[in-house]
């Protein structure tokens, strides 16, 4: 990834932008941090924040006129936070730390004229920069501070000046100041505080159009400011002036990149959804008590964005937000030698796209992650374990055993081609057959059956090579069928085909079904259900409407989940999340299921299996449109990967035999290996992603070649390496000719003497 590309992503996520209060504060006090601290009763933390940011903290913290109130986000929900009052409460609660400066003297000298808050702020900042600062002013140098407010007592003002003196700031009578033109000698550059009338006199002869950015007067090296009515504004001028002094000494530009030095507009976004309006706690003349301050601070929204994170368990899982993830991914991709620690994070996004629809700036993790995966594949750094299983499954689903493309029996052309997709075929082969019969009966123009894989797994795995190869094959089959309109049951197929092969016209099965009269024997669920839209339907409003229309026509009442339709989320299958990070996928599916106490109604076979896997009662719309034997369809468990594969093989054979009267393909020899399992073993194999067909081949190989190891208890151990994974099974041949599978495991490392002879 190019750095410029990273920056494009970074710019879009505004989570790190300052909150409104901080941006509006002329000195950029961390108001959010202050509220957090005070809200937790940590007044010392609050004082640290004040001391870190404000010059003359003991004074300014008591008299700040809080211009932030004009823009505080809380303003829209009850009233702005009384940040000024909170600062004062922190100061009233205990002493400042008054740490001595540990900055080495820079060797430069700077002069300040006047002893108002503006001049003294400049002096304080100058000392912090390591300058030898001399302040020229009247002898009673606390007078202007105590005049600001009764809250600033002589004692408080004295403390500030003593601290300044301790840091080496020298005070000298104004009369000793060399004439302005000569300041260039010992005491140049100079800041003149215009909130001290005596200092103002110094500039009596100087033209009054000061440069607003640098505050430079007509005399080079002489800066002036501090005549604003706002106390904090005067202090900010002092700070700006001392910054100019610094640049002047460094002979740097007085103007460049100073846009965010003063108040600016933040780009932050904070949602007020669900925020109840609470009015401010009135600020008493003598300031808030500690408990009052705490109460007021707790009204603070602790402004941030995180809109996408709030609705995505994946984003939440890794503890940060897209801007930080973009940096992490960039670094991960830049690793030359060392550990690429973000690999799993990159492979765990479901690519559902909800974040880009929720983000105020349209930040797309899908785009970022897709690019990252593509790069990993291109440089051969994609961890094989992340996607091997689904890609092997795809290879099978595009093999002759699972592919079928035929005109309707007896027909020679087709206006339509029913494309059920791999998941429905595997999970519910009976419905594929029923649908195909139904569509042929109801549609004119001939309906072909086209069983193949759209290539979505390869697309999600960023395997352009595999996707492209598959697409070429699809194009050929489609052309051979006479370029019919494709009726796709799965929105993932629709999405992949529409994006990558728009010339192949597609329509959703649901749009077709919604336009036809209902079949006989439609069943109704016992109770109202909650409708979940698959993530790949989010940008297909037509499909979502058709499903609702169809369900309505059937008489099914469906509750809408709070985030549905355009803002729906993934069941955990998308983006191959379930393969790269099974526990996270399950957490996400369970989270979605937990959003409602009702049974889920879905119209995607992947969703149905993913939710059922977590134990959530889930039914497919087809279960009601074409009811199967079971009466409680929502209670049917998910279909294992092994069974899905067998279902596909079985369906292709059955259709060939019954519809096209093609002689049955010879079964593979390993299919005669009959397996039996003790309780729980099938679930273990499913979890370990070991297919029954692999165990069958493994046993056949071991038995035929006598390549096995016998344990003292008589069971056998054998292995097989069909491609890049070595599978092991522990089994016992039984008298009835079956094999009891006692255990199975796998590893990816290639070991000499283990896992030989696996023909694909």
């Amino acid at each position, binding site marked *: 990834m190019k750095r410029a590309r990273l920056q494009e992503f970074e710019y879009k996520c505004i989570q790190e932008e300052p909150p409104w209060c901080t941006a509006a504060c002329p000195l950029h006090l961390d108001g959010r941090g202050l509220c957090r601290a005070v809200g937790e009763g940590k007044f010392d933390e609050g004082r640290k924040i004040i001391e870190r940011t404000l010059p003359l903290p003991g004074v300014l913290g008591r008299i700040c006129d809080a211009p932030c109130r004009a823009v505080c986000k809380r303003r829209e929900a009850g009233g702005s936070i009384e940040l000024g009052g909170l600062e004062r409460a922190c100061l009233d609660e205990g002493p400042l730390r008054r740490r001595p400066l540990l900055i080495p003297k820079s060797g430069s000298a700077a002069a300040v004229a006047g002893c108002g808050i503006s001049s003294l702020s400049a002096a304080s900042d100058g000392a912090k920069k390591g300058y030898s600062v001399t302040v020229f002013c009247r002898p009673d140098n606390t007078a202007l501070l105590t005049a600001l407010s009764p809250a600033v007592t002589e004692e408080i003002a004295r403390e500030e000046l003593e601290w300044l003196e301790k840091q080496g700031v020298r005070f000298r009578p104004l009369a000793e100041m060399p004439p302005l033109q000569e300041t260039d000698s010992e005491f140049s550059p100079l800041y003149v505080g215009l909130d001290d009338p005596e200092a103002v006199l110094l500039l009596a002869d100087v033209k009054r159009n000061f440069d607003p950015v640098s505050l430079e007067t007509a005399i080079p090296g002489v800066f002036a400011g501090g005549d604003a009515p706002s106390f904090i504004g005067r202090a900010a001028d002092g700070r700006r002036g001392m910054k100019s002094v610094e640049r002047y000494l460094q002979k740097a530009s007085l103007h460049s990149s100073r846009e965010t030095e003063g108040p600016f507009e933040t780009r932050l976004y904070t949602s007020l959804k669900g925020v109840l309006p609470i009015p401010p706690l009135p600020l008493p003349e003598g300031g808030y008590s500690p408990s009052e301050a705490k109460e007021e601070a707790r009204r603070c929204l602790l402004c941030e964005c995180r809109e996408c994170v709030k609705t995505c368990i994946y984003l939440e899982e890794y503890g940060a937000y897209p801007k930080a993830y973009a940096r992490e991914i960039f670094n991960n991709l830049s690793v030359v030698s060392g550990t690429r620690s973000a690999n799993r994070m990159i492979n765990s996004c479901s690519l559902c796209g909800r974040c880009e629809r929720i983000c105020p700036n349209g930040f797309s993790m899908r785009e970022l992650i897709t690019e990252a995966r593509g790069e990993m594949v291109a440089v051969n750094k994609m*961890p094989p374990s992340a996607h091997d299983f689904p890609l092997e499954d795809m290879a099978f689903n595009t093999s002759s055993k699972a592919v079928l493309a035929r005109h309707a029996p007896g027909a020679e052309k087709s206006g339509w081609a029913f494309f059920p997709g791999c998941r429905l075929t595997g999970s519910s082969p009976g419905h594929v057959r029923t649908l195909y019969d139904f569509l042929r009966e109801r549609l004119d123009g001939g309906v072909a059956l086209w069983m193949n894989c759209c290539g979505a797994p390869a697309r999600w795995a960023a395997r352009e090579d595999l996707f492209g190869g598959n697409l070429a094959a699809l194009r050929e089959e489609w052309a051979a069928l006479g370029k019919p309109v494709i009726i796709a049951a799965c929105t993932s197929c629709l999405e992949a085909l529409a994006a990558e092969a728009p010339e192949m016209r597609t329509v959703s099965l649901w749009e077709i079904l919604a336009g036809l009269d209902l079949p006989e024997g439609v069943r109704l669920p016992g109770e109202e259900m909650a409708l979940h839209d698959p993530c790949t339907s989010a940008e297909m409003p037509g499909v979502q409407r058709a499903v609702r229309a169809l369900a309505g026509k059937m008489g099914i009442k469906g509750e809408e989940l709070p985030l549905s339709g355009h803002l729906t989320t993934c069941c955990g299958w998308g983006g191959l999340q379930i393969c790269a990070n099974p526990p996270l996928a399950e957490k996400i599916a369970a989270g979605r299921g937990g959003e409602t106490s009702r049974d889920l109604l879905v119209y995607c076979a992947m969703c149905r299996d993913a939710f059922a896997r977590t134990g959530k009662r889930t039914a497919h719309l087809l279960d009601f449109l074409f009811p199967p034997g079971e009466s409680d369809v929502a209670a049917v468990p998910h279909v294992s990967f092994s069974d899905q594969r067998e279902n596909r093989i079985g369906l292709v054979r059955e259709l060939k035999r019954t519809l096209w009267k093609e002689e049955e393909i010879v079964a593979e020899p390993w299919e005669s290996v009959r397996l039996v399992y003790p309780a729980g073993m099938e679930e273990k194999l499913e979890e370990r992603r070991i297919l029954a067909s692999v165990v069958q081949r493994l046993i056949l190989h071991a038995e035929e070649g006598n390549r096995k*190891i016998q*344990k003292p208890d008589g069971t056998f151990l054998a292995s097989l390496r069909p491609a890049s994974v070595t599978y092991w099974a522990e089994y016992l041949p039984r008298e009835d000719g079956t094999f009891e599978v006692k255990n199975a*495991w796998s*590893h990816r*490392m290639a070991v*000499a003497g283990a896992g030989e002879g696996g023909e694909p």
Partner: protein
Amino acid sequence: MKELTASYGKYREYLCTNCGCPLELRKTEITYLGSVFTLELPSCPSCGLTLIPEELALGKMYEVEQILEDK
């Protein structure tokens, strides 16, 4: 992975069905993503048939696979 092989004594009672030999600990080559290791593993002294026990495959071996995949 060395410490694991210490507990492999029990595999001396396992037999290669083809050769009839009990398994012995023998140096065996293991490769993954271009990295090559040798490890003492239970295998048949006659034909070389090697056993990767479940605890090794799902334990240490899995960990090393994951580490190598992120390199």
